[in-house]
C-alpha cells in the first residue's frame, strides 16, 4: 500500500503534495532540479484566453515571514498553453490541474472548455480570487451568487472535475464554500493570497507598482488553517489546502485542519527542492505520529474518532 496515495475527484495522486499555481510556472524551471513525476500533481500557472503581460514591476515585495505579489496573471494565453506547455508536460507521469482565470464569465467558460480536453489535464482549478487584476478576479471570489453562477457555467462545459479556489478576503468563507459546493463544484482549493501592501520608507510610495498585492508564505498559514478548519466541517467535497506550507509538519497540520491534499506555493522560491523533500519526509513523520495512511489525518482536529469525513483513500 502506498501510504501517501490519495484519490480526489478526477485525481489519482501518488502523493498529496503539488506545487501551487503561479509558483511553478509550467514546470520547466523545476524540471532542472528533479523529475516532476515525483509530484502528486502540478497546478499550472493561471491560463487566460489571450496572452497577458500582467502588471508593471516591481511585482514582489517581502514582508515578515511572507511576500506580496502582483504578477497580474501574466501567461502565454490558452493557445500556447495547449500547443506548447501541456504537451511538454506529457513526458512526466503527473496529472495536471489547470488553473484558469478570466475577466468575464465567457472567458472562463471558453478556457475551461478547451483546456479540459487536454489529455493530461485531470482537473480544473477556477481562480476566482486573484487580487491582482482590475477586472473579474476578486469580484467572482467575494460574492457567493456570482461564484456559484460561474461554477455552474464552467461545470457545464468542463470535461474534467472542477475545483474552485477560494479567496480568504471575505467575511464569511463558509458561505462562499457552501454556495460553490451547491453549484456543483467537485472540490475546493484554499486559500489564495491575502490582500496586502507595503510602502517604501524612502520614497513613501507603495513598493509594488500595482500598489496592493497578494500576501503568501508562512505568515498566512494560521489564516489558511482557520478557514480550512471551518469550511471542511461545512462541506462534503474535498479541499486541497495551501497557504504557507514549508514542511511535512505543515502538511499534517493542513490535513488535521481538514485538507485531503495540499499545494506548496511560495516555498518553491525559497527552496526549489521543497516538494520532493516534503514527499520524502512525510512517511517518516507518519511513522512518528503512528499514522498508517495520510488520509486518516484529514479533519482529525475536529473529527470525533470513527466519524467519517471526505477521505478519498
Amino acid at each position, binding site marked *: 500500500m502506498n501510504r501517501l496515495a490519495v484519490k480526489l475527484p478526477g485525481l489519482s495522486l501518488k502523493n498529496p503534495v503539488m506545487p501551487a499555481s503561479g509558483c511553478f*510556472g509550467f514546470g520547466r*524551471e523545476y524540471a532542472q*532540479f528533479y523529475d516532476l513525476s515525483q509530484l502528486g500533481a502540478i497546478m499550472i500557472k493561471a491560463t487566460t484566453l489571450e496572452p497577458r503581460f500582467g502588471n508593471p*514591476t*516591481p511585482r*514582489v515585495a517581502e514582508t515578515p*515571514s*511572507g511576500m506580496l505579489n502582483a504578477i497580474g496573471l501574466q501567461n502565454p494565453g490558452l493557445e500556447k498553453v495547449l500547443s506548447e506547455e501541456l504537451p511538454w508536460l506529457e513526458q512526466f507521469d503527473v496529472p495536471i490541474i489547470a488553473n484558469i482565470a478570466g475577466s468575464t464569465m465567457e472567458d472562463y467558460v471558453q478556457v475551461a472548455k478547451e483546456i479540459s480536453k487536454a489529455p493530461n489535464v485531470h482537473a480544473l482549478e477556477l481562480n476566482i480570487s486573484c487580487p491582482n487584476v482590475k477586472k473579474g478576479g476578486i469580484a467572482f471570489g467575494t460574492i457567493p451568487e456570482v461564484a456559484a453562477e460561474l461554477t455552474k457555467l464552467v461545470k457545464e462545459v468542463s470535461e474534467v472535475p472542477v475545483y474552485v479556489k477560494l479567496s480568504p478576503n471575505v467575511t464569511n468563507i463558509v458561505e462562499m464554500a457552501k454556495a460553490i459546493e451547491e453549484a456543483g463544484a467537485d472540490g475546493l482549493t484554499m486559500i489564495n493570497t491575502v490582500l496586502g501592501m507595503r510602502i517604501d520608507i524612502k520614497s513613501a510610495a507603495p513598493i509594488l507598482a500595482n500598489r496592493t498585492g497578494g500576501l503568501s508564505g508562512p*505568515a498566512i498559514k494560521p489564516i489558511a488553517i482557520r478557514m480550512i478548519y471551518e469550511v471542511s466541517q461545512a462541506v462534503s467535497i474535498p479541499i486541497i489546502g495551501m497557504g504557507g506550507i514549508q514542511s511535512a509538519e505543515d502538511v499534517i497540520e493542513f490535513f488535521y485542519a481538514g485538507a485531503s491534499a495540499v499545494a506548496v506555493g511560495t516555498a518553491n522560491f525559497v527552496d526549489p527542492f521543497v516538494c520532493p523533500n516534503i514527499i520524502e519526509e512525510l512517511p517518516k513523520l507518519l511513522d512518528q505520529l503512528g499514522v498508517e495512511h495520510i488520509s486518516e489525518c484529514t479533519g482529525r482536529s475536529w473529527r470525533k474518532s470513527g466519524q467519517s469525513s471526505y477521505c478519498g483513500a
Partner: protein
Amino acid sequence: MIRKEQMSIVAHERISDNIYRIVLTGDLVDEMNNPGQFVHVKIGAQAEPLLRRPISICEIKQERKQFTMIYRKEGLGTSILATKMPGESLDILGPLGNGFPLEAAEEGQTALLVGGGIGVPPLYELSKRLVEKGVHVIHVLGFQHKDAVFLENEFAKLGETYVATMDGSYGIKGSVTDVIAEHNFSFDVLYSCGPKPMLKALAQAFPNQNVYLSLEERMGCGIGACFACVCRVPNSDTAYKKVCSDGPVFKAGEVLL
C-alpha cells in the same frame, strides 16, 4: 547547471562604508563560468527573511572552489548576512542567469567596463577574463562619495581605471557618463552594471554600438518560474524577458529600460 548547496564562509570583511566582501567555498563553484551571473542567497533557515537575495558573482577561483561576492548592507537580509562568521555556512542557489558575453570582445579590441555603486562587483571577474583573453580594458567606476569607493586597486591592476564620485570627494566629480563624455574613449564593446538611470544614459549615448547592460529587478524564484522580474521588449504588448533567467545581462535595445 544550477545547484543548491550549503557553502562555507572562508572569509568575510567590511571593505568600505557599508560594503562587505565574502568568500565562499563549495562544489557549486565548478558550475560557475560566466562573469555577470549571480547567486540567490538564503540568509538563515527561518521564515524571516523569507526570500533569497540575488547577489552577483564578483570573482571566481575555480582551482580553490571559491568565489567572492561583494555586497552593500541595505536592509534586513544583508544586515543579517553581515553578521555571519567564517566557518558558518550559507545556502546558495546558483549560478543563475546569463553573464556578460566574453565573445563579444576579441583579442586586441578594447572593452569599456562601466560600473555604478554596487553594480561594480560583477565587472571584476569580467575584466579578469577579458584581460586573460588579450582584450584591452578601460574601467569607469562611479560611486556616491569617497567612503563608498571599493575595488579601485584591483581594477587598476587590470587596466586603466577612472573613478568618479557624485560629490567629488574622490576622483573625478560627477557621474560615469560625465567621465566617458570627457575622455571620449573609443571602444569596441561596452559592458555595464549599475543603477537603471545610468544604464539608460549609456544606451542612449551609444545607440549604434555594442553595449551590454546588466539589470536589477526584485525577484521571487530567481530561476524563471514566478514572473516577478520580467521586462518588456520593444514593439510588443505581451512579449517579455525575465531578468533572472534571460538576463540579467541584455544587449542594449533587447529590452525596454
